[in-house]
Every structure is written in C-alpha cells, then in structure tokens.
C-alpha cells in the first residue's frame, strides 16, 4: 500500500476547542488514525514527525508578530491547508478587541504591559497565507471536520453547506423562535453547521458559525493520489 497521507494540527491564538473537536470524535478517532498518519499534533502527542505534511489543520488567529512569521512556515510545509474555527477563519472572538484600543486592553489585563508583544489586531489565517478551505464555527462541528478530512481523502467536495442556519432549523422541524416567540435570532444571516442548536434549545442563534455564504469556494487539491486511490 502506498504511504498514508500525513496530518498536522497547528495552533495559533485560540481556546483549543477546535482541536479538541478532533479528540472529541471518540467513535472515529481510531479510524482517522487509520486513514492518516497523525504526524504533528502537540495537544495529543509528543511525537513529532517532520514535514512536509499532506494536510494541515490550523486553529487560531494571528495576534503576534512571531505568529505572523510562523504561519508562513506552516504554509510552506503543508500541501493542503485547512483553517478551522472562527479564530482561524475570521479572527475569532479575540477579534472583538479590534474594536477596543489595544493599549486599553493590555493595561486592563496585564499589570506590566511592556512585556507583551502583540499585533494590533487578531486576523484570520487567510489574511496571511493562501488557505485551501475554511471551516467555520466556534467551535467547529466535529461531523464537519470529519467530513472535510474524508472529502479530501476521497477527492470530493466536502458537504459543508454555506446556506443559513434557518435551513437546518427547518429541516430539524424546530419552530422558529423569532416568529413564534419574538426572540432575536441571527440564524438567517449565519452559516449552517451547528444543526440549529440554539433554536432547538429555545434561544436565538448568536452566530457561532459566522456569516453565511462567505466560505471560499476554493477546491482543495485532492489527497486521493496520496492515498493510493
């Protein structure tokens, strides 16, 4: 059999929730480990295989000058680069800080602000390097993560819809909380992926999956050849 494709997981500024989603695939983790060689995944393993890697999953946003350099190295060693989660695709919740004056933030958190080197903004991976696929979500949906990995292996387009949460909401048969209860809901403008979680728990969508129909429609190069299919 031909060599297994290699997988690397990288972290930038983030809460680790999206990488954890991979470890949360309890039922599929060993199948994933069977389909790809997990070559670099610090949160899960101290063994580090050298690049280049066939598939890199990148979590987190770029917030420091050092990270702005590091992401270029990651791109260089990655055949396919998929950014995962709101931090990596939009700058994440820490991008909220762009609305505040950075100096105020630093002094609010740190008593010795002079120790901190940080970029003025929290920016998406795609703002720094070309990205093959962006998987939105805060956190990403583990089923979608598996789907993206599976699709890349099979050389098919991932079934990651870009339409509104409302579509999932209606498929699930959840009564619209906006219409039937008057709750504010971001569902119409937010990308599907969560399965209309909030409306199904009786609250309005608050936008975890980011704006709908924004996803880059870039086709990632197929890994099928690496997989010997």
């Amino acid at each position: 059999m031909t060599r297994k494709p290699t997988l690397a997981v990288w972290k930038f500024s983030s809460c680790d929730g999206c990488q954890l989603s991979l470890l949360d695939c309890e039922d599929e983790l060993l199948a994933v480990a069977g389909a790809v060689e997990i070559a670099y995944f610090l949160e899960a393993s101290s063994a580090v295989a050298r690049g280049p890697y066939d598939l890199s999953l990148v979590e987190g946003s770029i917030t420091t000058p050092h990270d702005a350099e590091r992401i270029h190295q990651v791109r260089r060693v990655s055949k396919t680069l998929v950014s995962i989660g709101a931090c990596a695709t939009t700058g994440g919740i820490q991008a909220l800080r762009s609305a505040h004056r950075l100096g105020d933030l630093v002094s609010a958190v740190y008593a010795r602000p002079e120790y901190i080197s940080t970029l003025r903004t929290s920016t998406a991976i795609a703002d720094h390097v070309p990205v093959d696929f962006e998987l939105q979500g805060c956190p990403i949906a583990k089923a979608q993560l598996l789907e993206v990995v599976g699709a890349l292996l099979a050389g098919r387009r991932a079934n990651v819809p870009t339409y509104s949460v409302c579509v999932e909401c209606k498929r699930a048969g959840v009564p619209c909380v906006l219409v039937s209860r008057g709750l504010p809901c971001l569902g119409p403008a937010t990308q599907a992926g969560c399965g209309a979680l909030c409306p199904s728990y009786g609250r309005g969508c608050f936008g975890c999956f980011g704006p709908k129909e924004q996803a880059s429609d870039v086709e990632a190069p197929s890994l099928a050849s690496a997989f010997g299919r």
Partner: protein
Amino acid sequence: MAPLPYVVARKRRETRDVWTLELEPVDEAIEQIRPGQFTMLYRFGVGEAPISSSGDPELGFRLVHTMREAGQVTRGLCAAKPGDLVGVRGPFGNAWPVDTARGKDVVFVAGGIGLPPLRGAVYDVLAHRNGFGRVVLLYGGRSPGELVFRSDVERWRSRLDVDVEVTVDTAGHDWRGNVGVVTKLIPRAPFDPANAVAFVVGPEIMMRFAAAALIERGLPQESLWISMERTMRCGVGLCGHCQLGPTLICRDGPVYRWDEMRPWLEVAAL
C-alpha cells in the same frame, strides 16, 4: 434511482483536460442512449455529474462520454483507468431532432466542449448521408490545444460531402486555420438558410451570438436547436436545480428549439 455499474473499457485523452471514456455495462445496461441525451455519471465516493453522450448511436449498449475536468467529479471520472468502475444513470433528457432535418441542409455549430454532445448527431447524419442536403460543421475553440476529436474532424474534413471549418480564438504561428470566434464562420458557410436545420452547442453567450448570425442569414427560428446546461442533482426533474423559466432542463431539454428558449435567455440571472 441508483447508478448501474459500468466498466471503463477504453479511455482516450482529447486535450490537456478533456478525456473520452468508453463504458460497458458490468451486468444490466441502461436503455439505448440517443444523441443529445445525457447520463449521470457517478465516480465512487466523489459524486455525480451530467455528461452528454458523445458516441456513435450505432454503438449499441457501449456508452461514450467526453468530459472536461471542471471540478471534483469530472476530475475523478477523468482519472478513472480502464477496468475501473463508474456508476451510470440514464439515459435522460431529449435527443437532437435529427429527423426534422431530413431532406434539408444540416449545420452543426460547436464551441469548445460543445462538440461532444453534437458528435453522435453528426455520426447519425453521416450514416444516413443521402437523406440530407449539404452538411456543414463549424467548430471553434479557444486555442488549437483545446480542440477535441481532431481525428474525427480531420476525417470529416477530408470527405467531399461535408464542409468543415475550424477556428480558434488565439493561435501561435504553427496554426494555419481560421482565427476568430466561431460565429464569424456563419455568414460564409455553404448552406441554404431557407432550407436548413442548425444544431448549436457551446457556452450560452456563444449560442446566442451563433443564433443571431444564423437568423441574420435567414434561418427560420424554428429550424434552430440548441442544448442547454444548468446544475443538475437528479437528472429526472425532481430536484428543481435545472429550472429555467417554464422548463426543467433535464426533463424538457437539454435540447430546445431556439424560439422556445430565447425569451428566457434574454433575462439575466433567471
């Protein structure tokens, strides 16, 4: 409807990114396909795409499909090797009304990857050559490297009873043929517009210009046929994707008489 397994019997490269696959049923075969009709071709684990028959209707149950690597499915199909299996559903859609051209001149106008859907009809007309008047094939591509079926085209060109003109948008010095868009060939093509039938396939914009030029020459709208394309998910008129105004292209088309389709093509983004 589930795909039937077919085996890739032969595979030929037409251009850098266009391939022809010849498929034979493993077991059960679909109904006989007619020129103009299409099948939904399935690449295992990747997905399905509508692809027109490009084969000689005399071939019987053997299917011939010519496709460009446009996305993941077509790329997967083009990567299939002889002996590989692909799934087939069909045949779907309607066929070229070749019979309406009996006794008349026949004009084929193809742009780029538009020639494959027409090839079966060309074979059909040539197989019954005596039943038709003059036969004209006007074929244009973006560059010489993008022309498909070059040996067929050469063979037809060498026949005295077929008029073949090939043109490319841009070419290097080694190209000795026509340069320019295919519609430019229409005004001087040798056919009698009052007594001819035209079959046109290409990008929508090309079909619109070709139709204008043909009508300008005096071809009645009712004698002009085109083949339409939209996204298709089911191929049988049930998924809604291929709607264009009053029609479902997979069900009512893909072949339309020009005057039926023209009003809808004139509305942008319909």
